[in-house]
């Protein structure tokens, strides 16, 4: 299978073929697909805080009904004991989405390679960009931020530390926002990179919002690029929080580097000679 290039990724062993559309799909009415166009098949599972009884089963069925499913089949049920029951349900979903009208904000930066990015910064900016990163709050998950910043890098790409045209500081784990801000100021950072992995009780949102407020309070917001990332971070969420960009699972260094370089330039257009 290795030969089929699936190492480290899984999914399909073959690259995706040109994205075609299946025959007969109505892009204004996109529905789930099981084995027939528009059959609407959906799989659902959940527990209920009631013991497994006929009534519990019926409750599960009605809940699925309220979710917009019909032809509901309870595939599996289990009594978890102590007043809990578990259900696996299949049904056909009434709902459809107008795919043709969906619009999604995207990171607006062409992806470049290692050499390209260094050349880009050397020629257009003329000096290395200063990047500071940290895993803030109580979060000790540094693997993500290290993947982006450290020499070693990620998924076969070097981290920013390896780029001649980036000057980097990685503060590591459990960094209070105060500390990050202070170090960013003394380092005169062009970009602040924050990682948040622990998300219980949305603690990551609180941490990130707080940092933005502090940076604004310092009147630094327009002088520095603010970028966040983590398994639960999306670009959209980042924008809502007041960041300039957000990166989720599987992000590689070049993606981030490309964004920093291009976005920095967009904000600091070179003055004419």
């Amino acid at each position: 299978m290795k030969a089929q290039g699936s190492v480290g990724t899984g999914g399909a062993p073959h690259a995706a073929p040109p994205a075609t559309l299946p025959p007969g799909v109505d892009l204004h009415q996109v529905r789930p697909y099981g084995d027939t166009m528009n059959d609407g098949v959906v799989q659902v599972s959940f527990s209920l805080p009631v013991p497994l009884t006929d009534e519990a089963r019926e409750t599960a069925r009605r809940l699925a009904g309220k979710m917009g499913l019909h032809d509901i089949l309870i595939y599996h049920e289990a009594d978890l004991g102590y007043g809990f029951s578990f259900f696996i349900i299949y049904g056909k979903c009434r709902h459809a989405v107008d795919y043709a009208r969906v619009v999604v904000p995207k990171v607006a930066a062409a992806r470049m390679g290692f050499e390209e990015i260094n050349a880009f910064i050397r020629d257009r900016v003329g000096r290395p960009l200063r990047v500071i990163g940290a895993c803030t709050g109580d979060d000790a998950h540094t693997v993500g931020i290290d993947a982006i910043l450290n020499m070693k890098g990620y998924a076969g790409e070097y981290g920013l530390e390896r780029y001649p045209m980036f000057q980097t500081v990685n503060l590591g784990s459990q960094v209070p926002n105060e500390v990050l801000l202070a170090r960013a100021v003394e380092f005169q950072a062009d970009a602040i990179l924050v990682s948040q992995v622990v998300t219980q009780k949305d603690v990551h949102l609180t941490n990130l919002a707080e940092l933005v407020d502090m940076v604004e309070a310092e009147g630094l917001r327009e002088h520095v690029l603010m970028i966040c990332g983590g398994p639960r971070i999306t670009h959209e969420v980042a924008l809502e929080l007041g960041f300039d960009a957000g990166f989720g699972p599987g992000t590689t260094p070049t993606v981030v580097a490309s964004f920093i370089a291009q976005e920095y330039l967009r904000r600091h257009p070179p003055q004419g000679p």
Partner: protein
Amino acid sequence: MERKLDLDPAVIERCRRAAASVADFVIGFARERSTVSIERATLRLMGIEGADDEGVPLANRVVEAAASRRLLGRGVALPFAAAVEATGEDATGTARLVASGRVRLAFPGPREEDAARGRAATLAEAGCGRILAARQARDEALAQLGEGPRPLLYVIVASGNIFEDTLQARVAARAGAQVVAVIRSTAQSLLDYIPEGTTTEGFGGTYATQANFRVMRAALDDTSEELGRYVRQCNYASGLCMPEMAALGAVERLDMMLNDALYGILFRDINMQRTLTDQAFSRLVSAAGDLTINTGEDNYLTTADPLAAAHTVLASQFINEAIALRCGLPPARIGLGHAMQMNPWMEDMFVLEVAQARLVREIFPDAPIKYMPPTKHMTGNIFRGHVQDALFALASVMTDQGIHLVGMMTEAMHTPHIHDRFLALEAARMVMTAARHLGEEVSFRAEGRVQARAREVLSRAAEMLEAVAREGLFSAIEKGWFADVSRSPTGGRGLAGVFRKEPGYWNPVEDWLRAQVNP
């Protein structure tokens, strides 16, 4: 093949000897008989295609006509060839005239006989030529593209709509599937004719038709090109139309056919004389077309207890092998089937299944053993089911199986959804990658649970086979020795379609096939 089970060759030899005598009986029995389906297959291979306005296949019409005029006993080929001579039309054209009653079938008079025989031979020649063409095309594609590592990952599609099936087959192939089987609609095996044209409605599967074979083959050929890997198509040479299915499969370049000596008898209540006679002919066809057959022993354990009846699976495999060899199928094309069907909550179930899987592997070293996933003990708990299938994949790679039917977590509930297959293939590939050489690394404790189980199953199979040889296959089946199911020699469907060959019976297609495979 490394021998890890320390099996006694003498016992294996006993099994083969007993199976040989059973097979000789079956072949002998079949030689003296033909069936309406064999005659229809003959006509199809002489060039008849299509159906009449009522959708009845012309091959059926012609055989009915011959039967009504008591001509079948000596074979439909000659009277039909005579009609072609007379009308000057091609085979299909002539069949239309016969169907509409405008031409009456009859044996040629002495003066026409030579011409008729000549015509019959050329028609057979031409028709059977398509089998060779398909065979050559497959050889070239395989030589050019290859088909990836073993075991071959085999999945089913069964949406009921051949066009949906092609979509799902392509998605599956891209996800790693190497063989795509189109499951047939629930009742098709009981139909005494093959529906015509492409179909978009089916129950629990999609109708097997010549047109559907073509549609799927074309889709898979596209995909094979895209992926740079040849993807096989599989269907069923099974049920009342077994010989015709084999013929169409060979012509339309299917690569595998489910084809079992006993499945139809045991699980579809098809008459045993009918199935065994059809069996012999259909395997000749598969041999000529170089198709791989998959036998159906895996099904036994859905009705019988896998712990107590494991030896019946092995016994049947010996019989299927012996019959196949006598039909000219080389070991490399005999995909003997078995399955992992033990209760997953039984202590050491995995240990015993590994013993069984390895046992089959070592006894039939050259056969591309077809290993079937847990089905009987699958439940609506798709998460648990996914793990049962993972154990199955591990047993498969650990014991060197040839064809791995990828288990679906949803097996207990529905024929696979598009992502069921995707997730199942991902899991199977992951397990097989992670344990790729585990089999090479481990050996089994002498006299341990694995070896002891394997030995026990083998010796019980030997006893059973010798008993069957003594008892006779028919009465063994009647006594319910296979799959706990009992059938009588004159019961079940399709007996009326069997007849003894009369003196002078002639079948140029059969002759051609035998010449091809000279068994």
